[in-house]
């Protein structure tokens, strides 16, 4: 790892000013991707702004029909939170399936979506549940947030503060994990509620995407049978040694069905 200056601000405002003051600063959330990247010497920031001590970024609250989850809330916290389990069990289940127990104890929702790994789980939740991403500067709708592989709508120096998930009537998540890395080869979130009927797929493409056909089918009746004929084309899907584009396309249909079946 190249060395860097470490900052541990106590507030979002301090973090923003530390970031602004650094020549090539990076925000450190849970570190589950960033530290591995630094260890491989694939990045050499001048400064790391560690968000771990900022209390205002942590926690889960219910607010006006939505669950607002602080950006530095860990996957384990989301997975085990009584409110999340009661209001959006699919979100708790998704969080429970990220990485492994130790990754869940450190990794955070803000870090995950800011990184926008094409195989991460959270983008499927954010888009599938029609969430809103709150930053220190503005609010970004889910559909506008993920702009491409490892790319988001965040501006330079912008800090995610929370994600607010409208509480759905029904939602389910199903994931087919890469047997080696345990990231999603395909993950599908299917939901209906105040944000409409939404189906979002992670892992399969360069970035999370929605399936209009599935949403239309579910819109007229939220059941597994409704989506039984829904397929996606393999064109443009990811392919690697673990799964071809064809296979991913097939798995999207299977996981879609399972997501709907598991929805509650």
């Amino acid at each position, binding site marked *: 790892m190249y060395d860097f200056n470490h900052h541990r601000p106590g507030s979002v405002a301090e973090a923003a000013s530390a970031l602004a003051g650094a020549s090539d600063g990076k925000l450190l959330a849970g570190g589950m991707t960033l530290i591995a990247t630094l260890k491989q010497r694939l990045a050499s920031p001048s400064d790391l702004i560690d968000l771990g001590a900022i209390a205002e970024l942590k926690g889960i609250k219910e607010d006006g029909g939505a669950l607002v989850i602080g950006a530095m809330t860990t996957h384990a916290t989301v997975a085990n939170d009584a409110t999340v389990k009661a209001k959006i069990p699919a979100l708790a289940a998704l969080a429970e399936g990220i990485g492994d127990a130790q990754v869940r104890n450190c990794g955070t929702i803000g870090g995950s979506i800011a990184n926008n790994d094409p195989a991460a789980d959270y983008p499927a939740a954010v888009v599938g549940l029609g969430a809103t991403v709150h930053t220190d500067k503005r609010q970004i709708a889910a559909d506008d947030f993920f702009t491409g592989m490892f790319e988001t709508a965040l501006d330079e120096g912008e800090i995610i503060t929370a994600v607010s998930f409208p509480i759905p009537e029904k939602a389910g998540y199903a994931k087919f994990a890469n047997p*080696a890395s345990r990231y999603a080869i395909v993950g599908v979130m299917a939901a209906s509620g105040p944000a409409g009927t939404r189906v979002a797929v992670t892992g399969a493409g360069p970035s999370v995407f929605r399936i209009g056909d599935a949403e239309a089918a579910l819109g007229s009746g939220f059941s597994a049978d409704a989506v039984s004929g829904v397929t996606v084309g393999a064109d443009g899907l990811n392919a690697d040694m673990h799964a071809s584009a064809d*296979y991913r396309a097939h798995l999207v249909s*299977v996981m879609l069905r399972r997501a709907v079946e598991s929805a509650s």
Partner: protein
Amino acid sequence: MTDTGIGASVKRKEDFRFLTGEGRYTDDINRPGQLHAYFVRSPHAHAAVKSVNKADAEAAEGVVAVFTGADMAADNVGSLPCGWVVNDRHGEPHKAPPHFPLVRDKVRYVGDHVAVVIAKTYAAARQAAELVEVDYDELPAVAETGKARDGSAALLHEEAPGNLCYDWVLGDEAEADAAFAKAHHVTRVDLVNNRLIPNAMEPRAAIGEYDMGTDSYTLYSTSQNPHLLKLILCAFVLGLNENKLRVIAPDVGGGFGSKIFCYAEETVCTWAAKKVKAPVKWTAERTESFTSDAHGRDHITHAELAMDENGKFLGMKVDTTANMGAYLSSFSTSVPTYLYATLLAGQYTTPVIFANVKAVFTNTAPVDAYRGAGRPEATYVVERLVEVAAREMGLDPAEIRRRNFIQPDQFPYQTPVALQYDIGDYGASLDKALEMIDYDGFAGRRSASEAKGMLRGIGFSAYIEACGIAPSAVVGSLGAGVGLWESAQVRFNATGSVSVFTGAHSHGQGHETTFSQLVSDTLGVPIENVEIVHGDTGSIPMGMGTYGSRSLAVGGSAISRACDKIIEKSRKIAAHLMEASVDDVEFENGTFRVAGTDKEKSIAEVAFTAYVPHNYPEGVEPGLDETAFYDPLNFTYPSGVHICEVEIDPSTGVTEIVDWVAVDDFGKIINPMVVEGQVHGGIAQGVGQALLENCVYDGDSGQLLTGSYMDYCMPRADDLPSFRVGMTETPCTHNPLGVKGCGEAGAIAAPAATINAITNALGILSMDMPASPEKVWRLANQQKMAAE
């Protein structure tokens, strides 16, 4: 049997330190003034090294030295040797191109060693390594086993035209052809034995140290066989007298074969310690383990089995291409020959076998022994052939095996592929396995799975292995460069405790416990008074180390012999103390008695007398410290039957192992708990090969695509079931303990059992490992896909 003696599941003595964080692995050791090494490795699979400019790196902060192959050449450091000469079909020795610890003119695989940076901290060494400028002239590469001998393939070594290391045969081809001419049916299979990366959890590490005062070296290394490492380094590489190098292999975190070999990194650390006048430490990052540990397997095979109308085997022909990688690792040549083709008889009476093995060089990491080493590959060939034969002949897979088993009254049994099996009862293991798995109930279980939309399959593997690696004269005649005996020194201390020095090395096997049981049982000394010392050439007689499931069969036998010597000497001392004739003195449970009297002396009293010989027999030396070297009379032949049951989800291709029965015959068993643990671990590695693990190099660029746990799929707890383990027992006839060895059995048996189960579930004859979900999904749906 006492509760700590032979046959008892004694809890392990070594566990306390491992469980409390007090284990002492090589990377836990830090020497005063030590420097840190980082290797500059080739990013290319094949390239000429035109120049190395190290000036910037040498000038970097904290850097003490930067060395290249030229520096080692100037010191006459030799090539890392391959210690087993395989003579080809024309009697010519294998092609042995040089393998320098740091390359001299060319790099031949991604990860090959170009230079070493030695600095005050690891971070400084690593940082400076980026400043070493290497001017490469990239060359075309060949990474695939099957393409190495193509006329157009890149040539790795001038010494090996056509990238051929050897073209070797075993058996009589004409006889085999004659047997096939008479066949009622011939079964043919094409198999790939997928390349694996051993992945012991402790990465390799080394600390080289030089003592100017005595002009001698010490090497701490993650080695399975410190004595062999010392021998190779001194005699072949560094040109040292053997009394000038001490090798210490402290706690070692798993080996599975990958830590047998003499590697570039430990060689460089040892050599460099004198150059920089300070200890030099290197610990592999996992990425380096992936690129530069010796890999395993990597065969392509075509095999044929000739049968009569009853499914009786008449002959077998096997044609294998084995990948050696870019250079020959320490014992690589023996693995696809003497540890492979000699096992092709399996448990069967196949009268004629002909095998042809071509070993090839490719632009990949060296390939050498990995758990099972040749025997998993052989078992995979035999048990896939037999399974396919059963399906083609319409025979029950258990029945076809039973019809061809060597029968108990046929031992000793001379196979057509050089080995003579001493004992076994293969039917007994099959019967027990069938009962444990409830074979009769399989049809019902399959129906139940089908009702859930799942496919269920059952697969057998009746394996044999040759362990102990074995009489020195035999392996010598086959080309081995070393003897393969083992040593033991059993020392009674004056106050009654016992120190045992063994040339075997424990890196998970639990020798400190099992060997203590053996000594405690034999000498009648409480187990807590027995200490097993291993892994230090400075204190232990020359030994051969641990691999090939040999530690107990060979090393344990040496301990047994040394204990016998202790007892015989003690008997003389006891006779003197009890004023009796030596012939009248009996020994049992640690006590000498004069037959028919109440006179007795404990062995502890005798030991004390041996060191305080005030009242002592004439002509007997003081002290009670005996050494034995044991050279076995034959290999040992563990065998068994594993049965695997799988359930496949055809909609995703995910295979779940729903049951696993292992019935093994390891002969006598010292510690059943430890033996079962070895079986479990072996099965996990075999299942890993069959379902998950695959080392992949890009065919064109030779880049390693599975260079981390993100892509190389290690078996996790949720990939595996609990295993059901049973035992049968035919004691080995030729070693004093009747033991055979158990460390590799699971890895040998499991791949064939798993693939046989999956192909059974899918209703197909063949598929290649690993049975990844996508592959299984495609096979499960191929008819449907073909129709579309």
